[in-house]
């Protein structure tokens, strides 16, 4: 065989392997999705959303209303705490500290914070908000989620703002606009789509978190909106139900898994489409 042939075949093998890798990736997504749908569809009923936990030995159909409500509550409070801090921090990094050493340092630190294991954030919040109080509580859960949220929102805001041309800021300043108004009226407004999608993706991420909630908001088997008490969450419920011995609970866990997975995937698809179409 001549050398050219060998080179060609070698090339085809490598390109073939790349193709296989990509196809495996796609296949995995659909395999996981298929299994989650198949396993979850049986437990999917109105009861899931309107009934609270029923003791498994009673053979009575229960639901996860308390867990859905708790998850929404925890995520909403975390967003209320984390989004403003994240956006303001992003504004500092992009507008006040651009190209400065301290700005680059904080930006890198935020980048690193994004990858801190979330369970460690759980142990940290446990030591400052659960132990001193003496019991698990919703605030601790939301704060733990907010701590995860802040660096993501900060970096995504910074990146969105940096896409706005500097000349636009200069043009606003040249009209005699005070700098805070330049940021508020011109820069933020131009970058709104980017910030909105970035922040929403970040919220979607914390909405699927389990590890930071285990040691903070823990779990509860009834509907409750008292943030000073333990609060139920869908993810923690899935964790306990899925590893329980009761078939009805495992089936509920799969149904909840189906709801949360489909919700997150659709949210991601929509947001990424918006992200692709934005002007800045």
């Amino acid at each position: 065989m001549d050398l050219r042939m060998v080179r060609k075949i070698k090339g085809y093998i490598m390109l073939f392997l790349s193709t296989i890798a990509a196809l495996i990736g796609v296949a995995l997504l659909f395999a996981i999705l298929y299994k989650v749908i198949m396993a979850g569809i049986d437990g999917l009923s109105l009861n899931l959303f309107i009934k609270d936990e029923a003791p498994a030995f009673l053979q009575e159909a229960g639901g996860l209303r308390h867990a859905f409500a708790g998850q929404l509550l925890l995520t909403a409070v975390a967003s209320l705490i984390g989004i403003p801090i994240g956006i303001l921090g992003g504004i500092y990094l992009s507008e006040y500290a651009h190209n400065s050493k301290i700005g680059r340092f904080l930006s890198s630190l935020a980048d690193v914070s994004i990858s801190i294991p979330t369970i460690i954030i759980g142990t940290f919040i446990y030591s400052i908000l659960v132990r001193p109080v003496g019991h698990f509580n919703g605030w601790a859960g939301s704060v733990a989620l907010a701590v995860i949220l802040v660096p993501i929102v900060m970096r995504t805001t910074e990146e969105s703002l940096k896409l706005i041309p500097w000349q636009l800021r200069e043009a606003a300043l040249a009209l005699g606009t005070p700098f805070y108004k330049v940021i508020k009226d011109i820069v933020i407004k131009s970058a709104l789509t980017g910030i909105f999608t970035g922040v929403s993706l970040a919220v979607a991420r914390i909405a699927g978190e389990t590890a930071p909630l285990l040691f903070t908001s823990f779990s509860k088997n009834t509907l409750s909106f008292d943030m000073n008490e333990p609060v139920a969450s869908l993810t923690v419920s899935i964790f306990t139900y899925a590893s329980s011995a009761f078939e009805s609970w495992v089936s509920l866990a799969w149904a909840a898994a189906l709801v949360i997975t489909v919700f997150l995937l659709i949210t991601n698809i929509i947001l990424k489409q918006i992200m692709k179409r934005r002007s800045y």
Partner: protein
Amino acid sequence: MKESFKTLKVKENILKYSAIISAFFILVIIAGIILSLLIQSKDAISKFGFIDFIFSTSWDYGEEIFGAGRALLGSILTALIAILIAAPMGVGMAVFIVEICPKFLKGFISSSIELLAAIPSIIYGMWGLFIFAPFIENTLQKWASTTLAELPIIGSFFQINYAGGIGLLTSGIVLSIMIVPFIASIAREALMRVPKELKESCYGLGTEKWEAIRDVSLPYAKTAIWGGIIIALGRALGETMAIAYIIGNMNLPLTSIFDSYVTVTSVLVNEFNEADGMQLSSLYYMALLLFILNFLTLIAAKLYVARRS
């Protein structure tokens, strides 16, 4: 009325200082984590020291002697297995998307791979436990038990000692699925930045497509890709919920890559809420070590990329 100079200054300062305080919140979080983990683990630190703790495999509730040896090894091994699989896969995916994929399929394939990252960790855990582990048991383990396990000397590394398909290797594989989208997207972006002229001049010399990728595109994108791989390693080290389901949680000596084992995160999930005293302090010590390991990995990635570009 035109705003007075003074109220303007006040408004200006409100935004500026709230922005500064918010940005420094990052520093507060990191300092808070380090400080609280240090304080909570000080009993364990003073009792076991550093070297003894990280190498000790004891986990004795009665005698209150704890060591992080197995958990640390488990975390590192699962992360390494995951990287060994995910790095070539992720780069392969990126090569396919950038260089081979027909245009009409590009969006679909790259979004599908990206969406793997949107699935929550706990779902990977359930899927891993109920579907993937039995699959591994029926395929890979069945095959290995009749071939690899029969080999002299190294055969025992492939012995099947636990049923159900869960264990170290299965955890590593599931972990690799979770981190592969990240590597793929970093590699894809890096490959897309390769200047067209560079590739064209390479084709101009009569190279094959793969040779151009190997000799021009991949070297050009190398720094970013390696940076992404190191970050992915850091993330794999801290992955929790999926591992908690499928590692098996066996605090016993590791003899085979199919064995059930422990990781720092799986021990935390299983013991943290019921622990107290020296055990809790030891768990915090473990968490601190994992945090440091993870932090150093990520900083290494940052420095590597910054230095090279």
